[in-house]
């Protein structure tokens, strides 16, 4: 009997992880580690981890990683990429509160400079770790602890679509939004991640992959309800598609 699927070497040996049950951060971090293992990059990859739920990944990943100050992961990755040996693969792993709110300046300028790094952006429409506050990506009408009556356009503005925003810049070479709500979506996400890392190896430039996730705990739902909500509402607002592939 042959083992056809085993836990990737990119994750540390099994232990009860820190993510809430049904959180897609677990799926995404596992996919990142699997892609790095498949591409044989575990020895020369460095992950710059943002602040938020993505910090929990620093317990999972079994390759080099460092934590950046809140929102500054693209800036740290830029310095790391320029200073490290040429064959080092540098990528950031950030959430939407980290990248789209506090770190908006860093991501815009790293993208505009066309830095040869890969950005893994996990969008769960809320600030997960701090207790479910409204994020820039929270949907219109979606309740959060700081918008108990739902997000209101007149007061809070519209959700921010980072792929579309970055698509206005000239330098990025690869921008794609994928969803992890089903096994098929996870496999597509892995392909996008692979493309992002390959672009970096080929020296092409800035790659940005947005992965849609849910947050069962802060949305106040069971994992299956949150997946249904995601398909019904989140994925309609944040359309899954490839924006750019040069």
């Amino acid at each position, binding site marked *: 009997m042959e*083992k*056809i*699927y085993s836990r990737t070497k990119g994750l540390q040996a099994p232990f*009860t*992880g820190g993510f809430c*049950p049904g959180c897609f951060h*677990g799926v995404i971090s596992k996919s990142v580690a699997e892609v790095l293992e498949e591409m044989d990059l575990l020895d020369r990859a460095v992950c710059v981890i943002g602040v938020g739920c993505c910090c929990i990944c620093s317990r999972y990943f079994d390759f080099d990683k460092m934590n950046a100050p809140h929102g500054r992961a693209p800036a740290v990755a830029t310095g790391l990429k320029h200073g490290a040996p040429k064959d080092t693969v540098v990528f950031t792993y950030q959430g939407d509160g980290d990248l789209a709110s506090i770190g908006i300046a860093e991501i815009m300028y790293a993208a505009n400079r066309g830095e040869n790094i890969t950005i893994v952006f996990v969008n769960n429409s809320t600030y997960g770790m701090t207790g479910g506050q409204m994020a820039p990506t929270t949907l219109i009408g979606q309740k959060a602890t700081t918008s108990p009556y739902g997000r209101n356009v007149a007061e809070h503005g519209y959700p921010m679509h980072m792929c579309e925003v970055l698509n206005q810049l000239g330098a990025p070479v690869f921008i794609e939004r994928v969803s992890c709500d089903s096994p098929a979506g*996870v496999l597509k996400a892995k392909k996008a991640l692979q493309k992002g890392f390959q672009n970096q190896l080929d020296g092409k430039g800035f790659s940005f992959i947005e992965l849609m996730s849910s947050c*069962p705990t802060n949305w106040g739902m069971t*994992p299956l309800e949150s997946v249904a909500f995601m398909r019904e509402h989140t994925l309609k607002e944040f359309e899954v598609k490839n924006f750019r592939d040069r």
Partner: protein
Amino acid sequence: MPKVEINSVTCKACELCVSNCPKDVLALGSTSNPSGYHFAVVVNQDACIACKMCAVICPDGAIEIYK
């Protein structure tokens, strides 16, 4: 004959594997693991086709598949 192995300690009973299994091989069990979750168990091993859907979606990497 394919075989699904679930790590009962790291499973968090999120049910994503159960809902994504096309052959209804998995279900949530009735006993708790040390963290207090009613971890997923294999209830219909013979129906498994080793499609790996459960393993791909598992957020905790708790599932391993043999064929």
